[in-house]
C-alpha cells in the first residue's frame, strides 16, 4: 500500500501565531483518515496548506511522492486533490449540473478557439462532459435536479453536490471539511454511508475534518489529533479514544482523574444493583 499524502514537519505561521506547527501526517492510499481537534487547532489551515491555498513556511507536502507545497491551487487540483468547504461554497447562480461541469474543467482540453469553431473535439468533450455529469448526479442521488440553480437546492443536496463537484475531476485524494456540519442524525447517517461508499466504490483516499465524534469513530481508519497547531496523537479510533492527551485537549487537564472517579462510581453502582 503506497502513501497517498504525507506532510513532513509542515508549519504555517500567521504573523506571530503558529497555526500549524511541524505536523507530520502520513495517509496511506485508499483509507479514510480524519483530523480532529478542538476549535482553532489548525485543522482547516492544514487543509488549506495541502490544497495549495496557503504555502507553508516550513516543511514538505508530498502527494504520491511528488512535492506539492508552494504550487498554485489550480495545479494542485489538476494533480488530483479535490476539496469541499466547511461552509458550502457552490457556484450558486449556476445549475447543479454546470457546477459539476466546472469541476471537470482540468480533465478536458477544448480551448476557446475550439468553442468558436465548434470543432469535433469541442463537441465530443461537451457530450462526454454532460454524460459524466449526469452519471455523477445520479451517483450522489440528485438525479433530475441537475437543471436547478445550485442555490435553490436544499441543504443536504448542496452538500452532496459539492462532493459531486469535487469528484468530477476524478481526484485521488478528497479533502472533506466537516461534511456533516448542520445535519440531523438521519442525514448524518446517510452521509457517513456515502463517504464509505466513495472509498469502497471509487477507491479514493479521503481525509476529513469532523467534529461529530460518532461519525469520526465510525468511519475512520486512522485519526490524527491536533491541538494548538501541534499533533498530539495519531492512530486507530480505539487507541485515540483512550489516549490521555486527547481527552485532556478536549476536556481540560484535570479531567482524567475525574473521569476515573466517575467510572469507578458508575461501576460500583452497577455492582450494587446487580
Amino acid at each position, binding site marked *: 500500500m503506497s502513501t497517498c499524502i504525507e506532510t513532513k514537519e509542515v508549519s504555517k505561521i500567521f504573523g506571530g501565531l503558529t497555526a500549524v506547527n511541524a505536523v507530520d501526517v502520513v495517509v496511506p492510499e485508499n483509507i479514510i483518515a480524519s483530523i480532529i481537534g478542538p476549535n482553532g487547532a489548525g485543522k482547516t489551515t492544514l487543509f488549506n496548506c495541502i*490544497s*495549495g*491555498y496557503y504555502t507553508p513556511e516550513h516543511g514538505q507536502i508530498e502527494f504520491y511522492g511528488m512535492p506539492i507545497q508552494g504550487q*498554485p*491551487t*489550480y495545479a494542485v*487540483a*489538476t494533480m488530483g486533490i*479535490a*476539496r469541499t*468547504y466547511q461552509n458550502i*461554497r457552490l*457556484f*450558486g*447562480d*449556476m*445549475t*447543479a*449540473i*454546470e457546477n459539476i*461541469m*466546472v*469541476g471537470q*474543467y*482540468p480533465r*478536458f482540453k*477544448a*480551448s*476557446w478557439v*475550439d*468553442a*468558436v469553431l*465548434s470543432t469535433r473535439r*469541442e463537441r465530443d*468533450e*461537451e457530450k462526454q*462532459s*454532460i*454524460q459524466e*455529469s*449526469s452519471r455523477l*448526479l445520479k451517483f450522489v442521488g440528485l438525479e*433530475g435536479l*441537475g*437543471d436547478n*440553480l445550485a442555490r435553490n437546492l436544499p441543504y443536504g443536496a448542496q452538500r452532496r453536490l459539492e462532493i459531486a*463537484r*469535487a469528484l*468530477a*475531476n476524478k481526484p485521488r485524494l478528497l479533502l472533506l471539511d466537516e461534511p456533516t456540519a448542520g445535519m440531523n442524525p438521519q442525514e448524518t447517517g446517510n452521509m457517513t454511508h456515502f463517504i464509505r461508499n466513495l472509498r469502497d466504490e471509487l477507491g479514493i483516499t479521503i481525509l476529513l475534518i469532523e467534529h461529530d465524534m460518532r461519525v469520526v469513530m465510525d468511519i475512520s481508519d486512522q485519526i490524527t489529533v491536533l491541538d494548538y497547531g501541534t499533533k498530539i496523537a495519531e492512530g486507530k479510533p480505539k487507541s485515540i479514544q483512550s489516549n490521555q492527551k486527547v481527552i485532556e485537549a478536549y476536556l481540560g487537564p484535570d479531567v482524567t482523574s475525574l473521569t476515573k472517579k466517575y467510572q469507578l462510581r458508575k461501576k460500583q453502582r452497577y455492582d450494587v444493583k446487580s
Partner: protein
Amino acid sequence: MRSSAVDKGLRTGVVFGIIIVTMFLIGFTVTGAELVGKILGTPSSSPSLLFFSIFMILVGAWAGASASARPLVEVDTWKRALTTGVWAGAMSGLFSAVIGFLFGELISNKIDPRTYLPSVSPESIKMFLFNQTPLTGSLILFSMLTVSGLAAAALSFFVRNNDSVKSSKRKASESVWSVIRSQRVSNVVQNKYTRYGSLLAFAILLIILPRVWGGYWNYVLGTVGIYIILGLGINIITGWAGQLVIGYVAFFAVGAYTFALLTAPEPHHLMMNFWIALGLGVLAAGISGLLIGLPILNLRGDYLAIVTLGFAEIIRILLKSDLMTAYTAGPRGIRDIAGPTIFGKPFNSDVDFMYLIIIAVLVVTFLANRLQNSRTGKAWYAINLDETVARATGINTFASKLLALSLSAAVAGLAGVLFASRNQFTGPDDHALMVSINVLCLVIVGGIGNIPGIFLGAFVLKGLPEVLRETESYRLLIFGVLLIVMMRLRPEGFLPAKRPELEKPAVQNLPGKEG
C-alpha cells in the same frame, strides 16, 4: 383620523406633485408637450396648449391610477378607488397650482425667473397657466389634475374589477398561450425549413433595409450597432468573468487610433489597405488588453475598476498631449481616415457602412454565443461567482481572466476601427470616459451576461435618445433615473441571463428512454 384611502391618495399626490414641479423647473413641461405633439403626428416648433393639456392630463391620470392601484390592504371598493384618485389628483394639482401661481405672479411683476432658473422661460410659464392670469390658470391646472386623477382611478377600478374585461383578458392570454404551446406551432417552429426560411427572410431584410430607410436611420442604427459590439465586448470580461473594467474606452481608443494612424495621410502617411489595418487595429487592442491585464488582473473588484479607469484617462491625455503630437496628431485628431474597399473599389457609402456594421455585429454575436456556454465560458462564470473556489477546482483563474480581457479588448478594437473609419476622423474627445459609462449602462440596463439583453440595452440607451432629439438635454437625468429604477425593480436588467438546461435534454436523448 384620516382614512387610509385618503392617506394613500395624499402620499401619491405629493410624489406626483413634486414630479410636476421638478418637470416645470427644468423646462420638461414644454418638452413633454412637444413629445405628445410628435407622437400624435403634428410636428410643430411651438407646442400648442392642446398638447400641453394632454400631457398634464396624462400625468394626472397616472397619479390617480397609481394611487388607486393594488397592492391593497383593504377591500377594493368604488369608494376607496375614487377617494384615493381624487385626493392624489388634487394634491398634485395643488402643488402645480401653487408653483404656477407663484411664477405667474413673478412674471406679471416683470421679474425674469431665468436669472435664477435658466430653464424656466416666460413662455413656458404662460403655457403652464394656459395663457390666463395666474389665479385662473392655476385653478384650471388644479381642476384638470383633480378630474383626470378621479377619472383614471375610476377607469383603473373598472378594468380591475369588471368581470367581462377580466375574463376577456384572461381568455385572450389563454388562447395566445394555447396557440403557442400547441403541437402544431412548436412543430412549425422546430421545423428545419421554417427555421432556415425565417433566417433567410431576416437576412434579406438586413440587406434591403439599409437601402430603403435612408441616411439618417443608417447613421443612428450604425451608432447603435457599434455600441452593441462594445456591449458584447465588455460583457465578456465584466458580464461573464465578473471583473469590473471601467476604462473600457481605452481599448476602443487603441483600435481607433491604430487604424487611423495606419490609414490616414497625416501624420505618418502609411495609407495602408483597410482590411489589413482593420486586422492590425483589432490585434493591437487585443495585445493592449493582454499587456494591461498582466500586472493588474490579480487585483479584485474595486481596485481593478479604479486601475482601468486610470488607464483610460492616461490613454486619452497622452493622445491629447504635446509630447505625442508628432505621433498621434495631438488634440486636433486624425483626419481623412480610409474607408473600406472591395477589390480596389471604394465601399464607403452610408449603406455600405451599415452592411459592414451589421456583419461585424453578427460576427461578434456569433463569437459571444459560441463562447457563452463553452468550457471557457463556464470557467469565466465560475470565476465571477467565486474566484477562490474556481481556482480550487483546477481553473487557472489568472490565465482565464487574461484571455477574457484580451478578447474583450479586441472586440472593443473592432468597434473603434469601425467608428474611426465611418467618421473618417478620430480625436481624443471621441474617447472620453463617457463612452465606457454608456457601454456599462447599456449592459446593466439590458441584462448583464445576456446577449439579447445587450441588444435591447443598446437600442434603448443609444437608439431612443437619437430618435427623441427633444430630450437631448435630459439624457443624463433620464440615465440616472433609469438606472435607479432598474436597480430597484429589476436589478438583473430587462432581460436577465438564464442558465441553459443540460441534464433534461441529455436524459431524453438516451436510447430506450423514449416511450
